[in-house]
């Protein structure tokens, strides 16, 4: 197992290097520089800015310079925010994004597994159709529709919850977490229903029932352990998606997370900020996929065999 993790981590190095090269080349190829403004920037000012941020150097020199700082953990200064380093922006925004992502994931798992399992136990009854209808709607309803809808109902009409903000007013974390989590809740519900249905019809469940084991033990200890494997393998990409895809929710609810910088860094041609956030999210995707694989191996003996010896 240790060898497997080490191998995967070593593989990550060329992947991250490639990601940074491609990102670097793409942003430098994009028209318009970081200092272009609607009001013309006087040429002498532009010259000083380019010198200060080393943009007057050849691209390979800039890249080498960037990478040699990045490996030491220094992601450079932001171009748009002269007083902020990319490290500082990430340090401020990432914990918020992570917190939001975790709440959203928690919501997705609670609602998703709950309704998925409930549906699988009563297939083709209202207890199946109702949650699955919601799941289908949930998958179809993007955050920019669901978010404002929730705000209108709970924020403005019922006046139960704040309409926007993060740690400004008690309760303001609830709506963004639900909005971000709901699409994933829908996926989790469908995955767990499918997994459970398949498992419940397998021989070992029939054997357990024949032995007279209590139904609750059969479901929780035996069926769910196998039936929820698809959910576990979905967790890695889901958490990565929750973290890097929170831009829309952050904008709707005025959440000071990293998603906004990730997207706007590209619009602003803030080279270092795009590179820094891209590298961060790339690393996270690698790590989360690895964690999901390790968890899968721990839960499923079949996969464990392949991972260790394959």
């Amino acid at each position, binding site marked *: 197992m240790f060898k497997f993790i080490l191998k995967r981590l070593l593989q990550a190095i060329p992947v991250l290097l490639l990601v940074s090269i491609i990102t670097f080349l793409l942003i430098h190829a*994009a*028209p*318009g*520089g970081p200092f*272009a*403004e*609607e*009001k*013309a*920037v*006087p*040429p002498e*000012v532009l010259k*000083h*800015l380019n010198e*200060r941020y080393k943009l007057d150097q050849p691209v390979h020199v800039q890249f080498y310079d960037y990478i040699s700082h990045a490996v030491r953990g220094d992601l450079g200064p932001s171009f*748009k*925010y*002269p*007083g*902020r380093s990319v490290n*500082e*922006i990430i340090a*401020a*925004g990432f914990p918020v994004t992570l917190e939001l992502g975790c709440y959203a994931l928690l919501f997705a798992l609670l609602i998703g597994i*709950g309704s998925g*399992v*409930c549906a699988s*136990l*009563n297939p083709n009854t209202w*207890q199946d159709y109702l949650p699955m209808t919601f799941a289908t709607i949930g998958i179809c309803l993007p955050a920019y529709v669901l978010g*404002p809808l929730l*705000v209108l109902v*709970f*924020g*403005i009409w019922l*006046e*139960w*919850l*704040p*309409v*926007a*903000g*993060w*740690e*400004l*007013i*008690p*309760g303001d974390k*609830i709506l963004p977490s639900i909005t971000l989590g709901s699409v994933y809740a829908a996926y989790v519900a469908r995955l767990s229903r499918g997994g459970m249905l398949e498992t419940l019809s397998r021989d070992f469940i029939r054997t357990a029932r024949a032995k007279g084991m209590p139904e*609750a033990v059969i479901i929780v200890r035996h069926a769910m352990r196998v039936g929820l494997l698809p959910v576990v393998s979905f967790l890695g990409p889901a958490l990565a998606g929750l973290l890097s895809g929170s831009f829309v929710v952050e*904008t*709707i*609810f*005025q959440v*000071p*997370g990293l998603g906004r*910088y990730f997207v706007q860094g590209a*619009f602003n*041609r803030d080279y270092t900020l795009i590179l820094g956030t891209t590298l961060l999210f790339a690393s996270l995707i690698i790590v989360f996929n690895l964690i999901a694989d390790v968890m899968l191996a721990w839960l499923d003996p079949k996969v464990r065999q392949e991972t260790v010896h394959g």
Partner: protein
Amino acid sequence: MITGNALKAVLSAAFLFIASCGFNYETNVESGTRQGILHIGNGDEPRELDPHVVTGRIESDLCLALLEGLVGWHPEGKRLIPAAAKSWEQSEDARTYRFHLREDAKWSNGDPVTAADFVYSWRRALLPALGNNYAYMLYYIRNAERFHQGEITDFSQVGITAPDDLTLVVELENPTPFFLQLLTHMSYYPVHQATVEAFGAADERGTRWTRPGNHVGNGPFKLKEWVLNRSIVVEKNEHYWDAGTVKLNQIVFYPIQNATTEERMFRAGQLHITNNMPVDKIAHYRQERPGALKIFPFFSTYYYLFNTTATPLDQVKVRQALTMSIDRQQIVDKITKAGEIPAFSYTPPDTNGYTATAQVRYDLERARALLAEAGYPDGTGFPGLELMYNTSEGHRRIAIAIQQMWKTNLNIDVTLTNQDWKVYLDKRDGKDYQVARAGWIGDYLDPNTFLDMYTTSSGNNDTGWSHRRYDALIARAGATTDQDRRFALFQDAESILMTELPIMPIYTYVSKSLVSPDVRGWRPNILDIHPFKYISLVPSADELSADDLSADDLSADDLSADDAD
């Protein structure tokens, strides 16, 4: 059924949790009004709080709370009032100003504000390595341009001197009638030398001097808290010379970019004042809460650029035909909907007493005739046009309307191209376009801020248009003191601009905000500058008789001052 019951239990628990968290909380507006804390939307996260590094509206509003120039705007924006300087004199030839600073003006750490602070700050604003985008605002001072360009390095040759602690003498290149207005701009704000230099060299960008705990300013408020992307809190500066006028205890600025989110926050009582207002909601507010909706003419023009270096737009008659064939009234009534004013000249109407006499017309017959004279009768043989705008739903709707108008009225085919902001800027700058959307906000209340953009040498002239007489008129206006004669020169220049039409004016913007009825002292203002020191909060239940400015809102010496503008 175990699971059914469990689900029910989870849902009711969640409901109780939600209800207990949020039920009936006191809104920001309620608690803010009670405690004198103003909650205001500020559009975006500021890039910096250093007045010599930043350029935008977001930053200038924050600097307005934290710093103060020699003079400031009256809250109605029509005239200037003394600020850090209590009075000033102008020499006979209008080229030298002598400012007298207040004895009681202090920095937020208690240090006195001296003339030397201004000399230091203006020198800093001009240091080439600082990369100040607005350094050109100081070019009206003798030798400032040469110092900034690095042609001279000895700052004593620049026309800024401090004969004593409380006197500042400024010599100008030319008599500049709007010079006092420039002093309200953040590039002329002072910074505290010891603070700036405690965190880096004078010309170092982005040092930590602007952080809470470090920041020292001379404005009515001081920086208390700055959480990236969440909020900026400023609190009353007890060392401010006019602290008696300042009613607010704190201001909380929120970097809300999305106008729809901002409107919802306003509706839920989380904000006293918004920075913007979604167009779709204007009709609703007009009907339901007209008192909260604040829409005022704004010193800014929405217009299109013509690239005059390539056919067919190198022909004046084509540009005239295009300009005459759009129905501006329709655009402001049906698309922008906030009461924008159709623009028939480039400078907005009543620019400090100047209204352009030369106006473009909406005249379809003449437009068709001009197009025929240019060689394209009824649009036949016209090569087609590409209209470029930066990504925005508002710009797209206007572009579609104009595309339709040109098709119907002139039988000209127009393709629309939507570009990401930086690509758009790049193409504009490289004249890689035919027709492009543009907007311009005046820096100071004078026709010059609009008209000097289209001189041949201006960095903002992206049309390739060049007219020697126009350049000469603008230069002559720059060297003229007499306001009537200046305005006459500007009239001549603008009539050239409105005949040659390298640009096509569309409408004059309005500023749109939602303002809680608790807010007092927030007044109509063409520059959309609302000095925070005059704003106060009163629960709207016990309303005052009038929201208008009364004489006692301003301190006595504001009114007695030498009003030189």
